[in-house]
C-alpha cells in the first residue's frame, strides 16, 4: 500500500503519476533513505512545486523519475508517464521517453551543457535522436526554439558555445533544449537557483508562458519559497524524503498546517514581514542514514509531543485534496 500521500487529481487523466516512490542508496557501510514514499499525480498544464531544504530528497526524486541515479540506487514504487510505468520499462524505451515526452532542466546550465559543443549542435542532436530528421532540418527547428525562449539574435547564438553566453541566456538555451521534442512533462531542478534575482523572474515568467502555449505539466523543484509561490498551482513540501504537506499555493502560503511549512515560510524574507524578527528553524535536517522513528521533523519541532517520536504519523487529507502529515495537524489548523 502506498503511504497515503496523495494529491488528488481533480480533472482529467494525470500525465505523470508517482506512487510510493522510494529511493535508497545502499553501499557497503551506509544505507541512505533519500526518498521515502512519495506519491503525486500531475495533469497537463499543471505546475507542482516540490519545496524543501537541501538534502530533503527533492532532486533525487526527479533524478529517480528520469532514471538518472547511479546503479547502486535502489528505486521502488511506480511512476507512470501517460499511463506507462517508467521504472520497469527497458532502458531503450526509457531513452525514447527522456528528452521526448519527459525532459529536464537543471540548476547549473553551465554545468549541464556540454562545453565543447555549440548550443545549436546540442539542441539539434536531441531532435535528430528522437525524430530521425536530418541535421539541417533539426538546426532550423533549434533556431525556432531559441526564438521561442526569447534569445535575442538567435541565429548567431545557435553557433555560440555555452561559455560565450550569460547565465540567464544559458538557462534559456537549456529550456529550449528541453522543449525540443514537445514534452508533456518538464522536470525543473532548481532552474532559477544559480541565477541573478532579475533573471530568475524572467525565467519563471518564461516557463509560465511556455506552459500556457504548450500545455505541458511542470514539476518544479526549489528551496525558494518566492519562486514556488510565483509559478506553482500546487506545492508539496518535502522533508527528509517525505511530503509533509501539500496543497494549492493558496492553502500552503496562507494557512500552512505543518510546523515545518510554517517555519519555512516565516524564515523567508519578504515585504509583509518588515519590522518583525525573522524566525529560523532550529537545528538541521536529519541524517538520512539514521532517520528517527515517527516524525522526522520532531527533533526540531516546537510543538513536539510524545506521540511524534513513535509510531506512524497520521496523514490528514482535506476535501480540497490538501494533505498534511502531522500528529497535531488538527490542533495547529486552528492555532
Amino acid at each position, binding site marked *: 500500500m502506498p503511504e497515503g500521500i496523495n494529491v488528488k487529481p481533480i480533472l482529467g487523466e494525470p500525465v505523470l503519476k508517482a506512487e510510493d516512490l522510494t529511493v535508497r542508496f545502499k553501499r557497503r557501510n551506509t544505507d541512505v533513505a533519500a526518498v521515502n514514499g512519495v506519491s503525486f499525480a500531475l495533469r497537463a498544464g499543471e505546475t507542482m512545486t516540490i519545496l524543501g531544504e537541501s538534502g530533503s530528497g527533492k532532486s533525487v526524486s526527479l*533524478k529517480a523519475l*528520469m*532514471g*538518472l541515479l547511479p546503479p547502486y540506487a535502489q528505486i521502488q514504487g511506480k511512476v507512470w508517464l501517460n499511463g506507462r510505468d517508467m521504472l520497469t520499462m527497458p532502458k*531503450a524505451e526509457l*531513452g*525514447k*521517453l*527522456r*528528452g*521526448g515526452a519527459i*525532459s*529536464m532542466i*537543471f540548476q*547549473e546550465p553551465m*554545468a*549541464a*551543457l*556540454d*562545453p*565543447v*559543443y555549440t548550443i545549436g549542435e546540442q539542441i539539434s*542532436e*536531441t531532435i535528430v*535522436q*528522437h525524430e530521425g530528421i536530418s541535421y539541417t532540418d533539426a538546426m532550423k527547428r533549434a533556431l525556432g526554439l531559441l526564438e521561442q525562449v526569447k534569445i535575442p539574435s538567435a541565429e548567431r547564438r545557435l553557433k555560440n*558555445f555555452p*561559455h*560565450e553566453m550569460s547565465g540567464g541566456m544559458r538557462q534559456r538555451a537549456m529550456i529550449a*533544449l*528541453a522543449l*525540443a*521534442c514537445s514534452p508533456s512533462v518538464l522536470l525543473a531542478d532548481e532552474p532559477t537557483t544559480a541565477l541573478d534575482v532579475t533573471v530568475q523572474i524572467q525565467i519563471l515568467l518564461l516557463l509560465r508562458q511556455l506552459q500556457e502555449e504548450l500545455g505541458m505539466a511542470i514539476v518544479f523543484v526549489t528551496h525558494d519559497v518566492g519562486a514556488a509561490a510565483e509559478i506553482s498551482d500546487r506545492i508539496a513540501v518535502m522533508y527528509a524524503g517525505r511530503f509533509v504537506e501539500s496543497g494549492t499555493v493558496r492553502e500552503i502560503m496562507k494557512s500552512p498546517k505543518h510546523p515545518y511549512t510554517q517555519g519555512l515560510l516565516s524564515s523567508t524574507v519578504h515585504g509583509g514581514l518588515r519590522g518583525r524578527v525573522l524566525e529560523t528553524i532550529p537545528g538541521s535536517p536529519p541524517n538520512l542514514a539514521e532517520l528517527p522513528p515517527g516524525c522526522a521533523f520532531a527533533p526540531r519541532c516546537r510543538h513536539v509531543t510524545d506521540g511524534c517520536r513513535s509510531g506512524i504519523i497520521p496523514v490528514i487529507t482535506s476535501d480540497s485534496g490538501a494533505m498534511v502529515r502531522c500528529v497535531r495537524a488538527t490542533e495547529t489548523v486552528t492555532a
Partner: protein
Amino acid sequence: MLVFAFRRLLQAIPILLGVTLVVFGLVHIVPGNPIDMLMPPEASPEIIAQMKAAFGFDKPLYVQYFLWLFRALQGDFGLSVFNATPVWGQLIAALGNTFILAILAAMVGFSLGIGFGMISALYHGRWPDKLFSALATTGVSLPHYWCAIVLVLAFAVMNDFLPAQGMGDDAEPLYNRLQYLVLPVVTLSLIPMGVIGRLVRATVLEILGQDFVGALSAKGLTRWPVIRHICKNAAPPVLALMGLQFGYLLGGSILVETVYNWPGSGNLLNLAIFRRDIPILQATILVLATFFVLLNLLVDIAQAAIDPRIRR
C-alpha cells in the same frame, strides 16, 4: 581559429632559437674534444691545429654558433667528424628508421591506452577496471631496456620465433623484414600505452562526474552518442600527452635501440656522444627538438579546434 594558429606559429620561432642556443651550448660544455679523439697520440701540434681549423673549432664559440646556425638554416649541418660524410644523410637515414618504430609504437600504444582507459573508466571499480588499470600501471612501471632483454630472451633466444636484433636488409622479403619490427615496437609501445591509459581513465572519470553527462542521458541520447561527447571532452589533455609521448618516441630510445641494435636516431646519438662527433650531435638534437616543438604546436592547434575555451 586561424589567427590563433598563426599566433602560435610565431610564438614557436623564439622557442626554436632558444633550442639552437641550448643545443649548441650543451654540446660544447661536454668535456672532450673530437679532434683529440681522432688523432693518434703522436700527431704533431701543427697537424692538430690544422684539423681544428678545417672543422672550424679554432674560432671563438659565438662565431662558431652563428656560422653553424646560418648553415643549419640552409639545411647544411656539415660533415661528421668521425667519418667525414655529410651529417644530413646519416641523420635522415637514422630518423627514417626511428620514424618507422615511433609511428608503429605510437599506433599500438595509443590505441591500446585509449581502449584500456575508456573501459576502465566506464566500468569504474569493477573487474575490467582492475584488470586494465593493472595493465596500464605495469606498462609505465617496467623499465624499457629490461623488457627488451626479457622479450629477446623469450622470443628470440629460448624460442626462435622472431629475430633478436637489427632491421634486416633490403634483399629480404617484406614479411621477413616486418618480423624485425615486432619486438622493438612492442617494447616501445608499453610506456605510451600505460601513461595514456592512466590519463584517459582519470580524465573520463572526471568527465563522467560532471552534470552534463547526466543531462545527455536526460535528453535521451543513447550510449554511443554519449561516449562521443565524453571523447570530445577528454581529447585535449589526452592529445597533449600523446604529443609529448610521440616526441619521446621520435627521439628514439637510446636503450631500446641499443638492445635491438636498431639503426635509429637513438643509436646515432649514442655513437655520436661516445665519438664526440659534435656536428652529428648538434644536428640530431636540433632536428629532434624542432620536431618536438612542431608537434606540440600541432597539439595546441588541435586542442583549440576541439575546445573553444582554449582559443583565447
